[in-house]
């Protein structure tokens, strides 16, 4: 069974959010994330299948970029101030770089660092994000289905919960020889959560309101 169509669909999945952003003129931070996601996914396919070169560096860089996009999206909703934000983000990025660049190599695919320093914080941020939705200041009630921030939390928690285990065991699985079937299953699960996240990017981009990301 070839996984090529799934990989292509996964790479194309952010296009819908990009088109929605262009048509409805909603060019927010997360719209740029959709472009970056599409660009990197397409780039990785080209590197891997067409030019048959090492794509691990691009993959590692994308995790870092993706983390920055999500961190800035959550910045004013869950961090008390810029100092706290800067400190936490720096520690996590340094941890990721230490694991990926120093402990291993940036030209290798080691996802444990992404699981520990990125996916785990995503889950925590989403829980805090949901908490800030439930207990808004002034007892303000928002319509969840029209809340970009709610959709961001939904997309990210599903993506992070699905991928954290995959990332944690990636090194273990690649170390095992003759484990192609299970690696295929790994890829299918990852592609599925990635597509799910990119589909949910549509309401995130469509319902985006700047003030929703700037206050609790």
């Amino acid at each position: 069974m070839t996984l090529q169509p799934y990989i292509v669909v996964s790479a194309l999945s952010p296009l819908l959010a990009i088109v929605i952003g262009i048509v409805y003129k909603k060019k927010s931070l997360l719209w740029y994330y959709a472009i970056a996601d599409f660009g990197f996914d397409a780039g990785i396919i080209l590197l891997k299948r067409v030019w048959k070169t090492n794509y691990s560096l691009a993959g590692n860089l994308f995790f870092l970029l993706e983390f920055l996009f999500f961190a800035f999206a959550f910045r004013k909703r869950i961090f008390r101030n810029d100092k706290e934000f800067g400190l936490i983000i720096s520690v996590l990025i340094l941890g990721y770089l230490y694991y990926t660049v120093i402990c291993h190599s940036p030209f290798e695919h080691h996802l444990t660092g992404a699981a520990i320093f990125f996916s785990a914080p995503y889950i925590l941020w989403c829980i805090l994000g949901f908490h800030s939705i439930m207990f808004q200041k002034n007892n303000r009630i928002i319509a969840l289905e029209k809340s970009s921030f709610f959709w961001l939390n939904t997309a990210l928690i599903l993506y992070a919960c699905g991928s954290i285990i995959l990332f944690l065991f990636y090194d273990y699985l690649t170390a095992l020889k003759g484990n192609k079937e299970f690696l295929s299953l790994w890829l299918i699960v990852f592609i599925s959560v990635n597509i799910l996240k990119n589909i949910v990017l549509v309401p995130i981009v469509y319902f985006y309101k700047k003030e929703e990301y700037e206050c609790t």
Partner: protein
Amino acid sequence: MNVHSLIVASIAIMLLLAFSIVIFVVNYQRKVIRHQDEIKSINEQKQLELIQASIQGQEEERMRIATELHDDVGATLSSVRLFLHSSMQKDADESVILQSKQLLDQSIRSVRNISHKLQPAILNQLGLHASLESFASIINRSSVLSLTYRSLCPLPKLSEATELSVYRMLQELTSNLIKHSGACAVTIESSVENGFLQIILLHDGQGLTNEMYQELIYKKGAIGLKNIVNRLKSINATIEFSSEEKGNFRICILTPIVS
């Protein structure tokens, strides 16, 4: 169970957890919205009842005035008309004229009484302090209960609306105490604190607590209390019911001083 199965199970559990969190948030928000809708509907119902109570109060007042005008002033003036008519037919009879004059005096008194009930003249002329003193002496004369009024400091001149509302609320509360509480002694104290006029009504009867008051104003009937709520709203005042030591009850009205 091998490692592969464990990984698959872990992923499934994580995704299930993520879904559960999302569903919990959605359900929580729905519950909050439902709760807010209920509160909104209760408030609307309360507003409606207050408006109805206000209209009913006005209608009752109109009915009372109409009855007094018809049965008292109307009847007296009809008699005067008859007397004057008969005096025109006969030779001038001084006793008929005198009787007519007496009846006219009675009518004037009746009209004055009605007017005083509508707007206590003393309130306009001498202010709230004198009106409450006069009110206490009227109640004490009736021997239904003993009402003591004391002012802990000189009261400033308040706006007409505030003075009338406070006076009417105290009238209504005292009337309620006479009708429902079985109180023998009532004390009204007025003072001024931090830009607020504070009126405390202490009594030894069966009183209300805040919870009972809230329950009553949401119930049907209790027009007097609903009128109090309307008057409180109109002058931005608050009322608090509480029980004191020795079985006494306390009602505190706090209103901002607007000259």
